[in-house]
């Protein structure tokens, strides 16, 4: 249940990313490369306390090791302000506004989770990236699920040669290791495509990957549900095939459906991340958790900017949430659980 709430928070944050983030995803401040998280101050230079935190302006120099040393300019305080005007954006893509949930006045910058090599706010980019990373898994898996249900349903219901043919196709798709299939499909697509189209291609790729397993299981379920006594009973009552499928067969695959969608979403998210991590997915300046994490593929980078791992933490959290949710749903959906008492 907690995971459901957590996921709701993640998705809401994705929907309102432009409002919640202090900066747009491509807003650069090149004088702040790899800036560490901006320290939030509660105590003024003279020692008096403030209720709301404030920040100082920062600037950096290279030390003798070529490490960046950021220092604060204590001469002016920049309090964190809520509902602060900033760059224009549209809430829900509809309401144009300049108001951001929080921020500080220029020229100070607030980096809750630090900045990347171009001084772009990592927190803002994670929020924007969640739009891609979270939706891509959901959409991709939903599409693959529809395909899987369709193919599985057809195969299971009609049986015979149709079933045979479809299942051979399914097996062929399943035979190929998933990650290589992902790469192969990516390779089959044009190399130089814009990130927007890339998004749809990834959805396509992910759905192509996912449907086979679903189809197989759904087919199996349909095959056995078709023989269930209550299906026969409904037919004995005079119900048509379509009604039987819609009212009796599909709802009983639905629990599997929802659980498997839930459990497959993380693989969608991870698939996108893997592609973007390899530089084959969503491109900068667009943010996705995968392409942000690509910067963490460097040992030295991790040592000096551990904040590059934040997108990974988000991926981890979301994937965990989906797993827990899937497990929870599976338990909740299994009506036999309650019925099974103690057998003698």
């Amino acid at each position: 249940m907690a995971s459901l709430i957590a996921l709701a928070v993640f998705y809401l944050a994705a929907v309102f990313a432009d409002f919640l983030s202090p900066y747009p995803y491509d807003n650069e401040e090149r004088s702040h490369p790899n800036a560490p998280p901006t320290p939030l101050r509660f105590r003024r230079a003279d020692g008096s306390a403030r209720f709301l935190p404030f920040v100082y302006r920062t600037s950096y120099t290279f030390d003798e090791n070529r490490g960046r040393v950021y220092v604060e300019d204590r001469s002016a305080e920049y309090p964190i302000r809520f509902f602060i005007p900033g760059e224009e954006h549209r809430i829900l893509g509809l309401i144009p506004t300049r108001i951001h949930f929080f921020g500080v006045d220029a020229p100070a910058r607030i980096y809750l989770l630090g900045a990347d090599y171009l001084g772009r706010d990592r927190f803002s980019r994670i929020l924007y990236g969640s739009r891609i990373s979270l939706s891509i898994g959901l959409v991709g898996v939903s599409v693959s699920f529809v395909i899987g249900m369709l193919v599985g349903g057809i195969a299971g219901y009609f049986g015979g040669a149709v079933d045979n043919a479809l299942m051979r196709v399914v097996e062929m798709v399943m035979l190929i290791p998933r990650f290589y299939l992902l790469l192969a499909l990516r390779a089959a697509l044009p190399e130089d495509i814009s990130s927007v189209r890339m998004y749809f291609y990834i959805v396509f790729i992910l759905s192509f990957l996912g449907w086979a397993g679903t189809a197989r299981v759904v087919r199996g379920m349909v095959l056995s549900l078709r023989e269930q006594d209550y299906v026969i009973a409904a037919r004995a009552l005079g119900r048509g095939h379509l009604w039987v499928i819609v009212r009796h067969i599909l709802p009983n695959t639905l629990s599997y459906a929802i659980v498997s969608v839930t459990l497959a979403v993380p693989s969608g998210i991870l698939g996108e991340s893997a592609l973007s991590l390899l530089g084959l997915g969503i491109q900068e300046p667009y943010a996705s958790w995968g392409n942000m994490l690509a910067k963490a593929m460097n040992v030295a980078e991790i040592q000096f900017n551990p904040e590059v791992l934040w997108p990974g933490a988000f991926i981890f959290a979301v994937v965990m949430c989906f797993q827990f949710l899937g497990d929870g749903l599976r338990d909740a959906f299994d009506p036999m659980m309650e019925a099974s008492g103690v057998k003698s």
Partner: protein
Amino acid sequence: MKPQFNIIPVIVICLCALVSCRRTQPNAAPQKPPEASEAQNKSGVSEHPKAYVPVVGKRGGEWLNATISGPKSFNAVVSNETSTGSAIGPIFEGLTTADPDTLMPQPKLAESWHFAEDGSSCTFNLRAGVKWNDGMPFTADDVVFTYEKLYLNPEIPNSTGDILTIEDKRPKVVKVDELTVRFDLPWKYAPFVRAMSADILPLHKLGNLSAAEFQHHWGLDTPPSELVGTGPFKLVSYEPEQRLIYERNPHYWKKDAAGNQLPYLDRYITSIVKDLNVAYLKFKNKETDVYGLRPEDFQVLNPLQKQNDFTIYRLGPGTGCSFVFFNQNTNSNSETGKPFVQPHKLKWFRDARFRRAVAHALDRDTMINNVLYGLACPQYGPMTISEGFFFNPDVKKYDFDKRKSKALLAEMGFKDVDGDKVLEDEQGNKLQFTMLTNVENNVRVSLANIIAKDLKDLGMEINFQPMPFNPIVAKLDASYDWECVLLGLTGGPEPHFGSNIWTSRAYHHMWFPSQKMPSSDWEARIDELFTLGVQELDPEKRKVYYDEWQVISSEQLPLIYTVVQEMIVAVRNRFGNIHPTPHGGVTHNLEEIFVKE
């Protein structure tokens, strides 16, 4: 010896994406023309280390290094990529080599050489008493065999042969006596001795092979004992994807000042690792003795020098650098009849003002500070400062000034007509194009992101697309359907070896390859300069030609240079005679390196 291969090859790969460009400089032995060998160094290299005088060392010990790509073959002639070159580097030697500091040619297997008065031949006196590592004597027959039957054999395509071939004319190699070889030259060829650093291979091992057989000989399955060379080490074991182990060549000819036979080291071991992170960690964990630093490694390793007992050598700007270039190809696809570049875009790309506008929009400071930790220099022309003598510092420089860019674009007639923050040309075409770079190179992808963002601010709609290296090469070499690319090349001290890029007929004339006639005046002039340069034997006069070439290229900007990374290596302190140079790397004097107590 081929010093450049031993500059931890990982750096080379990192910088140099266009492996094919190596074809022109496979031996990579930087060298001045023979006549200039005694001339004073007029290069702009500022931080030249003190002259290197080896000390007498002691025998024993191992040298461990790491590479991210193992050899693809052991065949020195046919192979033309760096991983093979570095693997066979310790085994073979050429007639000449380059002085790691002065870049002048130095004797190796040839003790001395002299040109005929009219320059029509060059005679090499071979070193006496040299033996192959299986104990057989090295003679003029080996040299004649190597050049006549291998490098200069038209049936064996190889880059040394290409370099020595001008208009299908090849030198003739004549054995004068057991230790004397004469090359009869059909043309004047300034960098000839520099080209003589190609590996000499043993006649007694390879003599009975046909050309076709030879091309597939000495593959990775060759028993190590078959690889017979004159170099200081011999290969004793090759474990694919794991390591190469070399041992001292007991027959090596070179002796130290005290008369001890070299090399000092017993063994030389190269581990093949998965990626740079592993190479880095191996060095940090003291599993290897040498490491070529990425800029971001510096801040970790620099403070560790004392504690971990190694020294970091900052060798100054490297020899390779990245540049942006636009497709200026006016031809059409012969099958579909479609032009390679849309005509309105071609018009922009062929306009020098457009390229200058881009040059002014390159934020080199951000590239250097944000991506390369300040360990790089801005670069404006085709030669880098470390490439020595022929480097021309007085090329046209472009500061980061978007107003200048905007002015240039406005002059061309670009205007944002419809207010969507994207410029349109006079015909109303949106100023948009696709920029490619190879995805494997993280630094380059970051540079491209900076460039794309700045160009976007100018009002260009850039579709930046990193993609794997090979498809980009295919576009550049074959299909020509690209618009803008960010790539890099390694350089060298000899400008003529860049003729395969710069002359308009060249296959690798990337912005408009294989032209029948130069498509512009400035390209015609560069062709002319290269022809003059190669035939002029006086280095001072040659430099004039090549200076002009560098100026033209900086004005016309077929390649818009960005930044050049500093070359930084770290070596453990337990070794003596360590003397890294930008060109020679750390192991140019491998045979003299020894383990201190």
